[in-house]
């Protein structure tokens, strides 16, 4: 068994888990954070994307023990004080989802994409950057629109704050 400790959505957690426990299973089954989804068994679909020390990773392709000592952010940790994160708000506004299964991973990936492109995004870049997130309903159009809009909104906020 592995003794692990990490910060999840700002809260310190410690646990004893089987060494083979995947991070996604730790989040879902031990912490009850079921927003992070498991969509495939092959590390391809991106439904399980969370941030590890500020970077988007597939939580199904990492042991919880590998993440020990790190800061993890999941979809549950995005909204602040009951207010949706700008990317969540944009997915709602632009209807960037149908069944919603891929949405948590899409949103976590989108926040990462926007963070890495502080000078703004174009459609081509967004589509390339979504390589690791599969949606089988929408055809991606509204997802791309939502991410472009959120990127603008977040740049606006950053400009206001400056």
């Amino acid at each position: 068994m592995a003794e692990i400790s990490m910060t999840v959505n700002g809260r310190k957690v410690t646990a004893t888990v089987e060494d083979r426990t995947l991070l996604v299973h730790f989040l879902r089954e031990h912490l009850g954070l079921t927003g992070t989804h498991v969509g495939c068994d092959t590390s391809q679909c991106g439904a399980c994307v969370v941030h590890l020390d500020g970077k988007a990773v597939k939580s199904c392709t990492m042991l919880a023990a590998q993440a020990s000592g790190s800061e993890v952010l999941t979809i549950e940790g995005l909204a602040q004080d009951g207010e949706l994160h700008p990317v969540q708000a944009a997915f709602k506004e632009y209807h960037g989802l149908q069944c919603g299964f891929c949405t948590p991973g899409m949103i976590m990936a989108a926040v990462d994409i926007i963070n890495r492109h502080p000078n703004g995004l174009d459609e081509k870049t967004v589509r390339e950057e979504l390589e690791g997130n599969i949606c089988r309903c929408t055809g991606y159009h509204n997802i791309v629109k939502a991410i472009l809009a959120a990127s603008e909104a977040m740049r606006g906020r950053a400009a206001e704050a400056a």
Partner: protein
Amino acid sequence: MYQTTYHRASSVAEAVKLLADSGDGKFVAGGQTLIPTMKQRLAAPTDLIDLRHISELKGISFSGNEVRIGAGTTHAEVASNAALAGICPAICHLAGHIGDPHVRHMGTIGGSLANNDPAADYPAAVLALGATVHTSKRSIAADDFFAGLFTTALEEDEIITAVSFTAPEKAGYAKFPNPASRYALTGVFVAKRPDGVRVAVTGAGEDGVFRAEALEQALSTSFDPSALNGISLPYDGLLSDIHASAEYRAHLIVVMAKRAVEAANA
């Protein structure tokens, strides 16, 4: 996934010792190949020795035109290194097109080379650049490192510590990605050096990455895509699978080589 025991090493020496003390242990770096393989129960190491927290394996350094990339450097770090882009943009381009952003945040150059997947991108760069693979035991020339499908010159308990190469005069990489996996259906890395041109092909060879001598000769005469006009490569030794026939891959090699030269000259 079968049971395993996780260990975290803080130095190369400690990792080697942990492996020696394990039953049938394996190193894990980014885990982007090994963890999926364990999930499919195609690998069942008794112990996993995590290399990700070993600082001596990290980072990219320069000494004049010499480049050294630590084995634990992620694809994302290689892709976004401005100094590296200044002297060898082709390797940044290559790293930035491996898999997807999430894979690039974890996967490492050392893991990719140790794994030597016949469709992986880095082996083409390392072979074409005539790089040296440094390990916990020795230094191995790229020409002696790759030894067939998923096989390298590495011994069981040998850790890749870094890759070094002299920045080429020009280099380019072009891959035709498999539309589903994004691995190379065929990828070609060309490097122009003072002593000639080296061309390495990934994704197409039955024995993994290889050098295309016919293309090297043509490009050494004239480093221009047109130098490859009319060349057709033999099919034998090339992969044939559900994704592409050997004939198709033979054709793709020349097409990708032209695009790689174009990128190098741009």
